[in-house]
């Protein structure tokens, strides 16, 4: 039997954080949901348990405690808030998988606020030098988690990182969430993945996909 893994989701009351939490509750995981507003995150935990009484989801008011308990940490806060989170959890995230989902978008969603030669994931890795930062869940919209199969086709979800074992663990998470995991490469590929999502967001606004859209690689 696989040992139950504990996942801390920081920013679990946000759109993406709540969507990820709900979809991972389907797997054999113990979820610790944190956010600044404990009531909001408690509501997410309650909803998870109501839909799936066998799930294990708990609201925790402190990201440090949750990350200390966790085997895997998901930073589901906006890019602008990531530095503050990283500084708080740095000690307790040592050697742990930290998933970066952020896209460093500007306020008008038509560009990135980050230099072209880096990415949100690589910046997070610099802030957490002893953690295993993995880019994942950044190329999927929040609505995709409820509907990972769009128009009859399963959306792909890209993963990037430097630690092979961590990539494997995160691939399992992505599969649990219902997406087809695609390991794109080392963490340095994150810049491409973040820019791909910028494109998808722009296309969504232009063609009105109603935030239900995703990537799929066609191949033989």
């Amino acid at each position: 039997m696989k040992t139950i893994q504990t996942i801390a989701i920081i920013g679990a009351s946000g759109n993406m954080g709540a969507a990820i939490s709900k979809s991972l509750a389907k797997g054999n995981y113990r979820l610790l949901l944190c956010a600044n507003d404990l009531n909001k995150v408690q509501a997410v935990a309650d909803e998870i348990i109501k839909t799936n009484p066998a799930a294990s989801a708990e609201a925790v008011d402190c990201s440090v405690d949750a990350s200390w308990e966790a085997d895997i940490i998901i930073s589901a806060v906006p890019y602008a808030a990531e530095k503050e989170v990283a500084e708080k959890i740095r000690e307790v995230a040592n050697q742990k998988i930290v998933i970066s989902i952020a896209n460093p978008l500007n306020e008008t969603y038509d560009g990135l606020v980050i230099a072209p030669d880096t990415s949100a994931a690589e910046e997070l890795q610099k802030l957490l030098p002893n953690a295993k930062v993995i880019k994942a869940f950044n190329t999927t919209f929040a609505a995709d988690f409820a509907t990972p199969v769009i128009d009859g086709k399963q959306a792909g979800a890209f993963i990037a990182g430097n630690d092979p074992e961590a990539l494997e663990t995160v691939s399992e998470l992505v599969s649990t969430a219902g997406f087809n995991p695609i390991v794109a490469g080392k963490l340095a590929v994150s810049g491409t993945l973040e820019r791909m999502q910028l494109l998808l967001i722009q296309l969504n606004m232009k063609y009105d996909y109603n935030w239900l859209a995703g990537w799929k690689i066609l191949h033989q």
Partner: protein
Amino acid sequence: MDRLLSLATMYELFFQKFNEKVPLTPEEQEQIKAYLTPKKLRKRQYLLQEGDICKSIAFVEKGALRAYTVDENMNEHVIQFAIEGWTISDLFSYLTAEPATYNIDALEDAELVLITRSAHEEFLKNLPKYETYIRLLITGAYIALQRRLTSNLSLLAEERYTSFTETYPDIAQRVPQHMIASYMGLTPETLSRVRKKMADRR
């Protein structure tokens, strides 16, 4: 405040014990720290479940854990206890990457320092003092195992219990009696009779 305090002492006992075996320089300590995983476990939660691969050795900073097997009649057999300053793992699985035969769970809320297999390999490559540390650790585990085997095979129930409480007075205080019975290969009823007999004599 409390939290900051416990963050600062996250690795304190680990390095204290390490230094008792092999003295480290502050630089070496930092070098080791970078590869350690701090982990909290709540009472009754698993660190390892049978059949999974044991990915780390756990050093106990705080709390109590046990390793046990479950037989086909669903009876639990306690293999080892671990409290502050001790390490616990399924060494067989850790060293061979074969599926674990032990379950390890927390008897009390616990704070652990994990040495993962990748950290272990990194240390073995780059830190000769770690090799000494781990040799002493495994030697100690072997001696404990041999003692336990001899005690279970050749001592009477009362002698076993006396030897256990003398060798591990702290554990005897903290752990439920039925688990101690299981550890000694006795039924809880037998242990309770033994204890009564000993008390009556006093």
